[in-house]
C-alpha cells in the first residue's frame, strides 16, 4: 500500500451500482456501457480529456442527466422515472460544482439552511446550528452573514461543500471543484476535501489534481470517448498505466 495514501475506509457494502449505462445526446453516444461499483467509504478520482463523459457520468448519479439504457442503484434505491425515487436519491447524494452555484440572493447562512429547512423539515434554529457547525469545519464561520458575491472563489467553493454536507449525505460528488479557481485558492478547497476523505466519506471526484488523487484516492478511473478505459489504485495507475491512451493522457498532464 502506498505510504502516502491515507488509510482506507473502504467496506464491502456497495452504495453505487452502475450497470451497462448508456447515454446519447441525439445521435452522439456520450456514455458507452459504463459499469462501475462503488463501495461505502471508497474514494474515487475520475480523470480524462474534456468531452470524455466523466462529468456526464457522475451527473447521472443524482439525475442531473438522464440516461437511456442500463441501470443505476444508489444506496439501494433504483434510479427510475418516479419523482419519489429521484428525490430520495438526491437527499442522499451531495454535489459540488465547478462554478459553485451558490444562490446569489441568499446569505451564506441561508444558502446552507435551505436544504435542512425545506427538504429535511428541520426547525430553523437546528438548521442554523448545523450550518454553523459545517461553516466552522470549512473554516469560514465569520462569513455567515455575507452574500456569495462578497466571497472569494475559494471561500465560495468551501461554502458549497458545506452546503452539501448540511444535508448529511452518504455520498459526495465533486465535478471539477477546483477548475474555476485561481491557483492560490485551490489548496484551501483541496484541504477541505482531504479532511472529508479522511473521515470516511464516499467520494466520486472528477478532477485533474493528480496530487489529490495520489494522496486520497482508493481508485483512479480514466475515461475517454465515453468509456471507462482503465481503473486502478493510484500507485499502479500513475506508475504502471496499462493502456496507451492513459499513457498519452498522463504524459500530457504530468509533464507540462
Amino acid at each position, binding site marked *: 500500500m502506498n505510504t502516502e495514501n491515507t488509510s482506507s475506509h473502504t467496506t464491502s457494502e456497495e452504495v453505487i451500482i452502475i450497470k451497462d449505462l448508456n447515454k446519447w445526446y441525439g445521435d452522439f453516444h456520450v456514455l458507452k456501457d459504463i459499469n462501475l461499483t462503488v463501495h461505502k467509504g471508497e474514494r474515487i478520482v475520475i480523470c480524462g480529456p474534456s468531452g470524455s463523459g466523466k462529468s456526464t457520468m457522475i451527473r447521472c448519479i443524482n439525475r442531473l442527466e438522464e440516461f437511456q439504457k442500463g441501470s443505476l442503484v444508489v444506496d439501494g434505491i433504483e434510479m427510475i422515472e418516479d419523482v419519489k425515487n429521484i428525490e430520495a436519491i*438526491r*437527499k442522499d447524494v451531495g454535489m459540488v460544482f465547478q462554478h459553485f*452555484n451558490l444562490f*446569489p440572493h441568499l446569505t451564506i447562512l441561508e444558502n446552507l439552511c435551505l*436544504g435542512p429547512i425545506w427538504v429535511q423539515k428541520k426547525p430553523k434554529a437546528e438548521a442554523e446550528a448545523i450550518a454553523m457547525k459545517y461553516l466552522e469545519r470549512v473554516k469560514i464561520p465569520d462569513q455567515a452573514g455575507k452574500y456569495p*458575491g462578497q466571497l472569494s472563489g475559494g471561500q465560495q467553493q468551501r461554502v458549497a461543500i458545506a452546503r*452539501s454536507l448540511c444535508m448529511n449525505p452518504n455520498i459526495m460528488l465533486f465535478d471539477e471543484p477546483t477548475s474555476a479557481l485561481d491557483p492560490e485558492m485551490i489548496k484551501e478547497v483541496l484541504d477541505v476535501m482531504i479532511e472529508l476523505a479522511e473521515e470516511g466519506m464516499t467520494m466520486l471526484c472528477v478532477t485533474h489534481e493528480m496530487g489529490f488523487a495520489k494522496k486520497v484516492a482508493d481508485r483512479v478511473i480514466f475515461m475517454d470517448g465515453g468509456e471507462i478505459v482503465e481503473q486502478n489504485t493510484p500507485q499502479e495507475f500513475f506508475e504502471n498505466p496499462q493502456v496507451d491512451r492513459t499513457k498519452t493522457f498522463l504524459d500530457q498532464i504530468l509533464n507540462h
Partner: protein
Amino acid sequence: MTTGIVAWMKNNLFSSIPNTIATVFILAILANFIPGLLDWLFFSANWSGETQDDCVKDGACWVFIQAWSQQFFYGSYPTEEIWRINLCLGLLLSVVIGSNFVSKTIRTKIFVPLFLLLPFVSILILNGSWIGLEPVSTDYWGGFSLNIFLAAASIIVAFPLGFIWALGRRSTMPLAKSISVLLIEFFRGVPVLALFFMGSVMLPLFFTEGTNVDKLLRVWIVLTLFMAGYMAEVYRGGFNAIPQGQYEAADSLGLSYWQKTLLIILPQVLKVSMPNILATFVMLFKNTSFLMIIGIFEILSTTQAALSNSYWLGGHANEGYLFVAMLFWTVCFGMSVISSSIERKLNTEHRK
C-alpha cells in the same frame, strides 16, 4: 482660462461655427416661447375665485381646476365617504414605500401577502356594504383615484398570474405549455382598446345568464389579463438570465419543483426583471385613460365632462388637459423613483 462658466460655454455651446449657429437658433426659439408660456402659466394666471367669471386675466384659469378638483380626484364618490378612498390610497402607498424600509424576512412574510391582498381589502372598504359601511355603488367611483385603483389592482393580480403563465410557457407538459402560449400571445397581440370592447360585450357571455356583472369588475379582469400577458414575457426574459447551475444546485439539494421555483428562481427572476416590470406598469397605468371610451368615469372622462359643463364653457381645455398630464406624469415619475430605489436595494443586498 479653462474653467468657469465662460470656458464651459465656449467649449460646449460655441465650439464651432455650426455649433454657434445652433445655439443662437435654439436660444431665439426659447426666448420667443418661454416668456409667453410662463406668463400664461403663472404671471397672468387666475388663482382664486369660485366661478369662471372670476377668471378676468388673460392667463390660465386655475379656478377651473380648483372648482372641479374633488371630481377630478374622487369622481362622484359621496363627499362624506371620501376618507375611504384616502385610506385605500394610504394603504397602497404605505405598503409599497414601507417595504423598502424593512428586513428581507418581514418583506417576504408580511409585505408581499399584504400587497397581494390589497385589491380585495380596497374593494371591501370602497364598496362598504360587506363591512357595515354606507354602500357606494361602483357607478359613483371615478376620477384619478379610479385610474390608480384599477391600475394597481390589475398589476397586483397580474404579478403572480403572469408568473404562472411564464412557468407554463417553459413547462414540458404539452397542455400547460400550449394553453399558456395561447393566453400570452392573445392578450399581447390584441390592442387593449379592442380588449376593453370585448370585455364589455363578450365577457358577460361567460357568466350565467341574468347575472349582471359589474362594469368595473369586467374592466379589472380585462386589464389584469392584458397585463399578465406582458408580465409573462417580462418574466421570460428574467428566466433566460438565470444560469443553468442554479437549477442544478437546487435539484442536487433535493428541493421539489415548487420549492426550487419559489425559493431560488422567482427571487432572481424578479431582480433581473425589475426595470422591465416597471416599464410595463407605467404603460398599463397610462392605458387606463382609454377607459374613457367605454364610459368609465376615470380622470379623462371627468375632465371632458367638466369642460362641457354649462357653467364652465369658457374653453378651459388647456388647463384641464395640462392638469391631467401633470397628474399622470407625477405618478409615473414616482413609480420610477420607487423602482430605482428597489433596484439599488436589491443590488446592494446581493453584492456589497
